[in-house]
């Protein structure tokens, strides 16, 4: 934390380090353990090494130690960079999946609308079929048209035959009537003639007898 504060102070004089960076750094490594501490130790040991009056071997070992610490710091920096890369690529991946899912949602919506239309159509068709069935049931109860037509034809023929017969009988009746009429009128005429004859005979007889009596 002290180092960050120093850094901040330095920042005031040298370059404006943005607040975001400060915030991020505090978040990641706020307690001073880990890399930050390592860098501080390195700086301290570097200054100590520069100002140390010790033997060259000690100096050399110190130098090697510092190189080791430096390598560690570089290694952890490399690791962090790779993690950063990985995060970037993960984010891209998630973006892709997100847009994919959005497209799927849109197409599912469309399919739902289509299916709803289909179901309406199917319901209409079903209703028509049921109406047709209901009417068909009623129609089935009535007799077949062919049958009825045939029956009608047979009845027609019978009717014709019967009227034919009736005509014949009528004609015969007329003929007989006429014949009887002729017969009866002849009989009547004969009767008349006979009566006339009788009468004229009687007249003759009655004319003759007074003539006989008168003599």
């Amino acid at each position, binding site marked *: 934390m002290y180092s960050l504060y120093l850094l901040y102070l330095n920042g005031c004089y040298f370059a404006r380090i943005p607040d975001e960076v400060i915030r991020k750094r505090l978040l990641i490594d706020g307690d001073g353990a880990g890399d930050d501490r390592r860098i501080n130790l390195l700086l301290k040991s570097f200054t100590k090494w520069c100002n140390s009056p010790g033997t060259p071997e000690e100096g050399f070992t110190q130098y090697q130690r510092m190189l080791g610490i430096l390598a560690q710091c570089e290694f952890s920096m490399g690791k962090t960079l790779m993690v950063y890369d990985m995060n970037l690529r993960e984010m891209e991946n998630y973006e892709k999946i997100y847009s994919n899912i959005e497209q799927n949602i849109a197409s599912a919506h469309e399919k739902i609308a289509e299916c709803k239309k289909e179901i*309406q159509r199917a*319901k*209409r068709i*079903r*209703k028509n079929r*049921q*109406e047709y*069935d*209901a*009417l068909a*049931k*009623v129609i089935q109860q009535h007799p077949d048209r062919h049958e009825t037509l045939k029956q009608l034809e047979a009845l027609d023929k019978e009717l014709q035959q019967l009227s034919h017969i009736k005509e014949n009988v009528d004609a015969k009746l007329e003929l007989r009537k006429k014949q009887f009429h002729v017969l009866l009128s002849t009989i009547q005429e004969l009767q008349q003639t006979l009566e006339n004859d009788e009468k004229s005979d009687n007249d003759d007889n009655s004319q003759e007898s007074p003539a006989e009596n008168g003599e």
Partner: protein
Amino acid sequence: MGPVELLHMSVFSQSFSPCGRFLAAGNNYGEIAVFSLSAALSPDSTALNQKPVLTFTAHEGPVFSLLSTDCHLLSAGNGEISAWSWSELTKKNVKPLWTRRPNYKSSLEIPEINSMTINSRDNSLVVGGGDNNIHVMDLENGVFKTVLQGHSDYVHCVTVREREAEILSGGEDGAVRVWGEFTGNMGLCVFQVCARPQYGKWISCVTTDSDWMLCGGGPSLSLWHLRSLSPTSIFNLSGCQRQAAFHQDLILTVGEGAFVSHCLLGGEVKAQIPCTPQSLNTLQLNNNSTEHRVLTVGGSSDHIDVFTNLSYRAFSLRF
């Protein structure tokens, strides 16, 4: 409204507003309650949204029939018809626009009005009631222009056949009569075919789909083909049906019995969905709005059941 009155309440009629967002229901105390469907159906509705937004006393007698036109609500009470404006009702203003009464022969006894419907061909209101006659009123000038006489007992229900502009009426005398300009007055004999003598011969619900007609009541509910005037299917439902409707490929019907029956046109009963009231009087489908497509049923209870999906009861509105 005390608890005893709520217990004895019956809902006789319902009507949706032309915008489809409100439901008006009439009960046996002469009151009309207006419920807000959009509030009751919204995802964050509470129990308070299932109570009416407005309740008012419309008539002295029970409100047997409610009807909505483009901007008015018509209610039938004790022999009189009142009109209310929907826009005024949503603003809680309960002054009726007009109140009219058909010309009854005797002025001593006021017959009740059982059913009203609109004949859109000539913009007239057809009213059937207890005086055995059907009165036809012109909606523009409010004059009762025709009286159709023919029933020998009171008229339960009237409906209009859109395409041919004929009026169908069913009555207590068991006859379904077809009144048309060219057919005159023609009677259909329902009695013999689907009679159930133990319930009587009264016809209490007649509804039509222009080619087909449903009628029921004392006799079993039956489907008739109007062109040939022949019954095609008889539905084997145990109680007397009080209201029926055609919906897509189904027939929905309510009556005695705490359920809504779904039937197919062929005569089979597909499903019976249980409801709160013990016996149901009225059934309405909201076709005026696409997002509030619900079925509501009301009966001998102060609850009105709302079905968002036809297969189950979603919730109840309470008076």
